[in-house]
């Protein structure tokens, strides 16, 4: 791949119902604003996995009825995805996209095997949650929206993305939300999570592009000011502060 940044979206025709795949747009736009070349590659359902290791893979949420078909389509590429991750590719996995790459999924009374690329078992929760989700994390207070049926159980020792301030998150007693490690950000914050919370995007881009990456560009400052206002409106509606007080 010739660009400084290559972002691969996986089956966006099914995993973009909440706009999750558009995080690729956020990453490529921010990289270009900082002077880097960037491209988005779409891996379409039915096609072989694209050649060349991407810098970031985005797997968004699909609706439950299509999950078995997506698992079948992903399975032959499991080795490739694992090799990419081990070679430094970052993965952003959102909602049922995380469940697909995780260990198991409880679906319609059955337990399906995930790709086991990421930790996390998606288990029956206490009913669908569809609401705002606010999380305090090392990247500051993250604000977004969650819409999921299942909870996620993390293996002991996993590091969540943050702690739930408002919402359900992973559904665990310790109010954990998401998962983060050197290679992965997994979360229930769906849709344009990187646009609304640019600190996450910038952390990812700095890791891929190195010290040459900067968010101090005029276009990035304009969208980040807009994002700050958007987070503030949501937090205020929920009676919260828009910034992490800790």
């Amino acid at each position: 791949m010739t660009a400084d940044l290559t972002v691969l979206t996986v089956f966006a025709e099914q995993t973009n119902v909440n706009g999750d795949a558009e995080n690729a747009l956020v990453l490529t736009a921010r990289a270009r604003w900082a002077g880097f070349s960037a491209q988005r590659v779409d891996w379409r359902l039915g096609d072989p996995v694209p050649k060349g290791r991407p810098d970031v893979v985005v797997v968004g949420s699909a609706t439950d009825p299509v999950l078995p078909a997506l698992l079948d389509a992903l399975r032959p590429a499991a080795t490739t995805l694992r090799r990419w991750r081990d070679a430094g590719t970052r993965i952003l996995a959102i909602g049922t996209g995380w469940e697909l790459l995780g260990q198991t999924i409880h679906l319609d009374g059955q337990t399906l095997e995930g790709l086991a690329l990421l930790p996390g078992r998606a288990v029956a929760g206490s009913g669908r949650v569809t609401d705002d989700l606010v999380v305090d994390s090392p990247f500051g207070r993250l604000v977004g929206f969650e819409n999921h049926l299942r909870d996620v159980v993390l293996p002991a020792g996993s590091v969540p993305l943050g702690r739930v301030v408002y919402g359900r998150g992973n559904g665990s007693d310790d109010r954990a939300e998401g998962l983060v490690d050197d290679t992965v950000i997994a979360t229930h914050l769906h849709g344009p999570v990187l646009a609304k919370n640019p600190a996450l995007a910038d952390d990812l881009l700095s890791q891929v592009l190195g010290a040459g990456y900067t968010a101090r560009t005029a276009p990035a400052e304009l969208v980040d000011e807009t994002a700050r206002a958007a987070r503030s409106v949501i937090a205020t509606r929920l009676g919260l502060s828009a910034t992490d007080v800790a």
Partner: protein
Amino acid sequence: MAFAPAILIGRLVRVAARLRKRGGGSAVPGLVVNRLAPRFLSATLAGFPQGLVIVSGSSGKSTTTKMLVAVLEAHGLRVFTNPSTANISQGLTSALLERVDLRGRILADIAVLEMDEGHGALIAPQLAPRVVVLTNVMTDQIDRFHDSEKVAGMLGTIASRATGSLVINADDAMLLELAAHRAPGTVIAPYGVSQGVLAANPRGLGYAQTAATRLAQRDGTVVTEVDGRSARLSIAGGEHPITLPARGTHYAVDAAAALAGARAVLGADFDAERATTSISAVAPVFGRGEIVTVRDQQVEFVLVQNPASYQLNVDSLEKGLDQLFFAMGSDVRDPSYFWPVDSSSLGRVAVVSGSKADELALQLRYRGVEVGAVDHDLAHAIDTFLALPAPRTGIKTVIFTADSMRRTRAHLGLV
């Protein structure tokens, strides 16, 4: 006379509601009557000599209903219909209360009702519609419906009640699937677009799943050509030109749905010439491409209902418009699902407003659209926009979601 007390009480409530708030309170009488007399709605809807027609689907309901009513009236039928703002059960009951006599009867030959998918599925089991017209299944209101499969399920519940014909969009794979499981004896009346029309819309027509093949002209009502506000339709093998209420292939599809529905209702009495002439005379529904004179200037109003209609409407706008207003309100619980829409062709939006203004501005800016001002106060924002100089290209255009549409109409005194 069983419903007379409930009807009287409902009317009193209506008078009281209107005294309290002029033009308001339209759902409250329905709410009261539905509580006092739960069978009023189904009993009244069963009382039309030529039966009941239900129009439902993710989008295009209002325009299709309006067109179908126009065609049936042109054929001499007296039609009872509901305003598009009253498509949920209490609104339907309120609309019936407006016209019903104390015996629970309405002086009309047939009822043609637009129904919200969710509410329609809830009340459908009490109804026996002669004809059900389904427009499409789109990814819509995810926080309420979760996924398009659920929407298809609700439409399936409504469709299963059809006693005569099920009128379906043959380009929508989920509706085709649903038609395959219809009640025995129900006749399928399909409509759709030609391969050429589909090819002219490279992003598709917004359906959650588009069918692999197109409907043959001999098998139904087919849109064969769309050019701006002009379209051609093939009806029973004959070609007919029509004029659409506004630009866009989706309005031609609405016309095909209405014509197929009218054929199902009228049978041998259907006159294609009369039908297409009456459809061509239909004015746009407010917010569906309607042009209104406001404060001495022409303004076009465009309603965005879901990602598909957002994309279709953006794509059908005249190119190079330089005075655009865009408001997204509280009806959009979470704007995330609008992010896949490529709004870049808007170029510049002068004023962004509504309670979701910042999230909308964020999407627009990432799509490379310049945003002039973000103003949360919708009334103030509209005033600012209308005070801007006349555009260089076209006319001022207001794009909004349902909640912002209602507030804008109220602010501008548009009824």
